[in-house]
């Protein structure tokens, strides 16, 4: 198969993804919650899409669909134009996983404590049949360790995970993801558990991988400043919905959706006033649980601009600038 991967054709496209979870034990108490509702996005080679938004808004759920942990309830994902389920039917789960790799929040839990670093990276190389022969394997492992800045590589390869710091372990996790030469890396809060002094090093490493290896990144974070630092594009989620997305500067410097405006007003900024009146951005109301039968805009109860239609029908997507989209009646 010959498919061109130009920077302007998406490598992954998700269209109208929804994911329902069933909650509660007994038949009578059972309810269905919609963790993701009609979410669409594209990932481009050599570019990052940051996903920001409140806790529980569905950021990880989207990534878990791409990494085959969950199956979407509805909607479609295509990889280089081909439906994900077809690719999995042809090449199996592992075949698809060699294109899309995941990096998790917890660098402590994601490495097997009983194996040396060499093994942790050699294993995926062997499983995915990337390399033959002992010497070639060792060379490739050392090369990967060098790529992620774990030098001297030979020394690191002989260590056990407990002998490494959190940041070093996260670099091993990145090297392991790189081993299978993925086109896409899904990074779910990859720096939030690391020391503040080493977070930037990991972000810079991911920046280099994106620029030099042309890898497409999905970067999930609570930290909007790092989203803007790392990602060309940013998407904002609220209660299972993607409410605003586009060029990171447009979204962070010129937020349009009332929830994005609230979120940005809350971001701490050294030197600014320590008390801001958040009531100019929201009504106090509980964050709703979205259900398949829920209607309207998920932010309606907290929104200062809500009109009657906001609680009856989900607003459509409006393009407000070249690469800037929003789901809100104020712009329809």
């Amino acid at each position: 198969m010959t498919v061109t991967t130009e920077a302007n054709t998406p490598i992954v496209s998700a269209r109208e993804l929804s994911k329902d979870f069933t909650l509660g034990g007994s038949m009578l108490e059972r309810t269905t919650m919609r963790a993701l509702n009609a979410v669409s996005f594209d990932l481009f080679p050599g570019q990052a899409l940051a996903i920001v938004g409140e806790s529980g808004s569905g950021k990880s759920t989207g990534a878990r669909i791409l990494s085959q942990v969950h199956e979407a309830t509805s909607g479609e994902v295509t990889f280089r134009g081909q439906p994900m389920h077809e690719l999995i039917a042809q090449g199996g789960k592992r075949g698809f996983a060699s294109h899309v790799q995941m990096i998790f929040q917890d660098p402590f839990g994601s490495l097997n404590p009983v194996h040396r670093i060499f093994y942790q990276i050699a294993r995926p190389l062997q499983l995915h049949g990337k390399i033959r022969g002992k010497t070639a394997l060792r060379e490739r492992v050392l090369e990967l360790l060098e790529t992620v800045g774990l030098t001297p590589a030979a020394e690191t390869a002989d260590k056990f995970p407990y002998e490494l710091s959190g940041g070093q372990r996260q670099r091993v996790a990145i090297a392991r993801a790189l081993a299978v030469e993925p086109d896409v890396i899904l990074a779910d809060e990859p720096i939030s558990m690391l020391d503040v002094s080493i977070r930037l090093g990991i972000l810079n490493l991911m920046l280099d991988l994106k620029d030099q290896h042309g890898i497409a990144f999905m970067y999930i974070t609570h930290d909007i400043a790092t989203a803007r630092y790392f990602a060309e594009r940013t998407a904002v989620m609220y209660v299972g919905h993607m409410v605003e997305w586009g060029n990171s500067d447009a979204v962070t410097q010129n937020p349009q959706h009332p929830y994005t405006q609230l979120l940005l007003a809350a971001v701490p900024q050294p030197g600014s006033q320590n008390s801001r009146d958040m009531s100019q951005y929201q009504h106090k109301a509980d964050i709703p649980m979205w259900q398949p039968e829920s209607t309207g805009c998920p932010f309606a109860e907290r929104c200062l601009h809500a009109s009657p239609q906001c609680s009856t029908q989900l607003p459509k997507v409006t393009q407000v600038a070249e690469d800037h989209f929003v789901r809100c009646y104020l712009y329809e």
Partner: protein
Amino acid sequence: MALQAFQPAPDEDTSELLEIKNLCVDYVSPKGMVRAVNNVSLKIRPGETLGLAGESGCGKSTLAFSISRLHKAPALISEGEIRYRGRDVLSMNKRTLRQFRWNEVSVVFQSAMNSLNPVITVGEQIIDVILAHRKIKSKDAWRQGEELLQTVGLHASRMDSFPHQLSGGMRQRVVIAIALALRPRLIIMDEPTTALDVVVEREIMDELYQLKDKFGFSILFISHDLSLMGEIADRIGIMYAGKLVELGTADEVFTRPQHPYTQGLINSFPTIHGPRERLYGIAGNPLNLLEAPEGCYFQDRCAQCFSPCRTHDPKMSEVSSTHQAACHLLAERTSG
């Protein structure tokens, strides 16, 4: 009454609420002794917020515990002095200490919102604290509890809720309400909002500062989030590997950081509105205290390290009357 122990004698200097002098706290473990707080001196004034920042393991929580003498074995205060309104905290007897905690100084511990007792209602947890320190009827304590919940932005009916029925932000508000219950003059907050969303964090900080304006307490605010610190603190202390390496007003520390670690730390935080450019932060990895070197503890990660750094421990020296840092470069600059 034990409470009277806290009425300062007329001739006592009360310009400082709390003064820590040369405090050292050690952990004794089979692998060796670790000095988690190493010769730290600082003062907290009435009504001010002092922020304490630094990476994981630098000793922030250990310092917070030892101020209220809540540290437990294997931690040991091996040297130094802690004075609260002129009184020697380290020599307080059990009874005085009990009055001192909660009444004078309360602590919101790291991840306290997850340590509320799951089988007891919020109301009972609040009135337990009040009844343990005040001779009042439980009916009145309950009413005070309801008022406390309202001051932190929760409905009084939440007194009957169990912790699991509340969101993380609501639980954190309960913890703050408990810390405020006896109107202390100093609240030590160890990463009070780290696990929360920025919007919830903002709401809680706003409420806290309204309460602070109303009651006038001081806050020792511990966090690794320098951005938040730069916004809420009057003064900031930066710790590295157990030592206080820089102390100054928030403005001084942010706009004229002197210590290379502080400079690196500030450069590690991308800004939300500033220019989008590559930042470099700090090279290397945090120091393992069991392998602490001679001289400056930051030497292995410092791009400006020079010969005295390998042999001599840099002492705090003055940059201005409100600003100090512990780095050999300061002496170089003044002499050269």
